[in-house]
């Protein structure tokens, strides 16, 4: 029992960052914009959060910095893919390349003079610590949910809200119409470009926050490429959640669980039956299979699957 509780706690700690970014990407993709710049945006978020918190001593300024930088990076993607009608895949990849480069570069520039301006190896005075809720955190297994950081507690409110906003409000309806049938949405008087801009930028803010979770809470430090491909797992998680913000957390728990299990078994000295690399790529393989099976099944029954129809396509009123 204790092992399971610990495993769950580790999963939640690791999954927090992924959940933020996944929620963001779901909102972006729901409007029809595919943002493959997640990895770069998350890494920039992690760097900005850490550098700000390190130099000002304020964790909350760090968070704010990560949100702002996330907004800026996704605004570049929005500008290129919406206004300039550039290819979304190429634009996203370029942003990842630029973001990872810039973050790694700045990591060697924003540190203290005594460390040759390097941020690697520096520590924060404080981090987002776990806050245990008296009584509740002692419940076996479930208790793991009540001994988490402020960033995770915030998610308990954000996830239901994100689901409600998407499916029960007129704003959510607007998002879905723009992602499903931009031409019809436009004819109904919705401003397609503005909605796409708005949620691409909000998505980027969440990605920045996801990065901040890593550098301010999960592993409070800065390291080159510290997101280590989490931005790509996010793309997979969005599919696994079938673009439903309410389900974003499920995939995170499953895949975060796989990784945590791998670490705790290794730490416990088990000779792995399944090689650790197989566990490493399993999220991608499972997502690949999920996507394929759901799409094939969907040909018979329409309701199973909800990839936005206009995902990755540009839209302009003057074109046919």
């Amino acid at each position, binding site marked *: 029992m204790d092992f399971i509780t610990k495993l769950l706690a580790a999963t939640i700690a690791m999954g927090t960052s992924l959940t933020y970014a996944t929620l963001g990407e779901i909102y972006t993709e729901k409007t029809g914009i*595919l943002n*493959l710049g997640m990895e770069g945006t998350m890494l920039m978020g992690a760097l900005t959060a850490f550098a700000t918190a390190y130099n000002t001593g304020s964790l909350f300024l760090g968070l704010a910095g990560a949100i702002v930088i996330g907004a800026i990076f996704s605004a*570049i993607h929005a*500008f*290129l893919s919406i*206004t*300039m*009608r*550039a*290819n979304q*895949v*190429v*634009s996203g*990849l*370029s*942003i990842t*390349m*630029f*973001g*990872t*480069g*810039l973050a*790694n*570069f700045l*990591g*060697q*520039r924003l540190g203290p003079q005594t460390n040759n301006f390097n941020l690697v190896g520096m520590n924060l005075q404080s981090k987002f610590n776990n806050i245990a809720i008296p009584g509740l955190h002692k419940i076996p297994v479930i208790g793991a949910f009540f001994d988490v950081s402020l960033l995770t507690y915030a998610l308990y409110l954000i996830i239901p809200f994100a689901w409600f906003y998407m499916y029960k409000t007129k704003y959510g309806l607007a998002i879905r119409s723009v992602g499903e049938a931009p031409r019809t949405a436009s004819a109904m008087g919705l401003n397609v470009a503005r909605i796409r801009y708005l949620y691409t930028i909000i998505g980027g803010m969440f990605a920045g926050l996801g990065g901040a979770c890593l550098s301010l809470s999960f592993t409070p430090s800065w390291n*080159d490429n510290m997101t280590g*491909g989490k931005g*790509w797992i996010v*793309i*997979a998680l969005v*599919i696994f959640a079938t673009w439903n913000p309410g389900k974003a957390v499920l995939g995170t728990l499953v895949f975060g669980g796989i990784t945590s299990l791998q670490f705790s078994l290794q730490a416990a000295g088990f000779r792995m039956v399944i*090689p650790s*690399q*197989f566990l*490493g*790529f399993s999220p*991608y*393989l499972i*997502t*690949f299979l999920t*996507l*394929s099976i759901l*799409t*094939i099944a969907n*040909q018979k029954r329409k309701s199973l699957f909800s*990839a936005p129809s206009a*995902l*990755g396509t540009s839209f*302009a009123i*003057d*074109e046919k």
Partner: protein
Amino acid sequence: MMRFIIEKRTTKSKYSVFIVPLVSFAISLLLGAIVLAASKANPFAAYKAMFEGSFGNIRRIQYTLREAMPLLMCGLAVGIAFKLKFWNIGAEGQYVSGAIGFTWVVQFWTFLPPVLLLPVGLLMGIIAGGLWAGVPGTLKAQWGVDETLTTLMLNYVAIGYAEYLYIDHWKAPFGNMGTPKFPDAAILPSVWGRVHAGVFFALALVVILWFILYKTRWGFELNMIGKNPKAARYQGVSIKKNIIMAMLFSGAIAGLAGAIHTSAVAQKLTTGVNGNYGFTGIIIAWMGGLNPFGSIIVAIVMAALSTGAGQLQIALKLPEAMGAVLQGLVLLPLLAGSLFNEYHLRVIKKGAE
């Protein structure tokens, strides 16, 4: 009051093809200069160091060309799929599959006479890459499974599997990772210093692809599907068959690139087998205007930016990551500029409309 609107060009401009990249590149240099100046480096000295680092002497030129080869081949690979608007972003995985296939033959097919190791190994690289691309191609053609997402996911499966092979299953008895070095007969020879025989494959592919795309019926069909799938269907062109064919072809080229680079440069399967060539290849195909000859120039520029970055570190004590920053700064204005190949800005005075 004035208003800007973006309008589709009615005629394709002859000059925009050259002017847009040049203006974009000038903007990139300017943006780069700002970043360099902000990090207290002299932009002129930095650009000079980068140029010297990538083209400064024969050895540097050879090194840049060696880096450009896998980039060019991956660019060609995805370019053919992009022709029919099939977003193969899985060249990275297909490249790695090719490297795995090659390694399998040259390390374990000991019954082969040495002279056959290289050709059979390269062939296996082609097959492995082709199959890895054929799966998402078939899924798309038969059931409409989104190819952008499937090819992306399969990248990480291939990379993870390669990691398993060189860290665990195929690891050499000595050292902590990597297979044993390939036998000499399995290593592509050098033709000019660091430039290996892969250059012939790369250049031959440029010509072959150009010929296929612009001079054959198949190329015509691919173009037609990309531009107007409905018209293509009325003409009796099978979209399904073409998607699968193009993906097999695309993966085969990426797989060959992986086999060649692993054979000639790493000379064993080890860490760094996924050199991001597949991802950069996407950018190269796009920037090269999906024209095989255009891709050569872009591939060399991108390779030069990364080889030149090393010199930035040596000459100016700048972090090597500056190279990736500058690559990004080259790409973003170019992407924005690509709009002007098909559209142009029109200024409208309010009331005059």
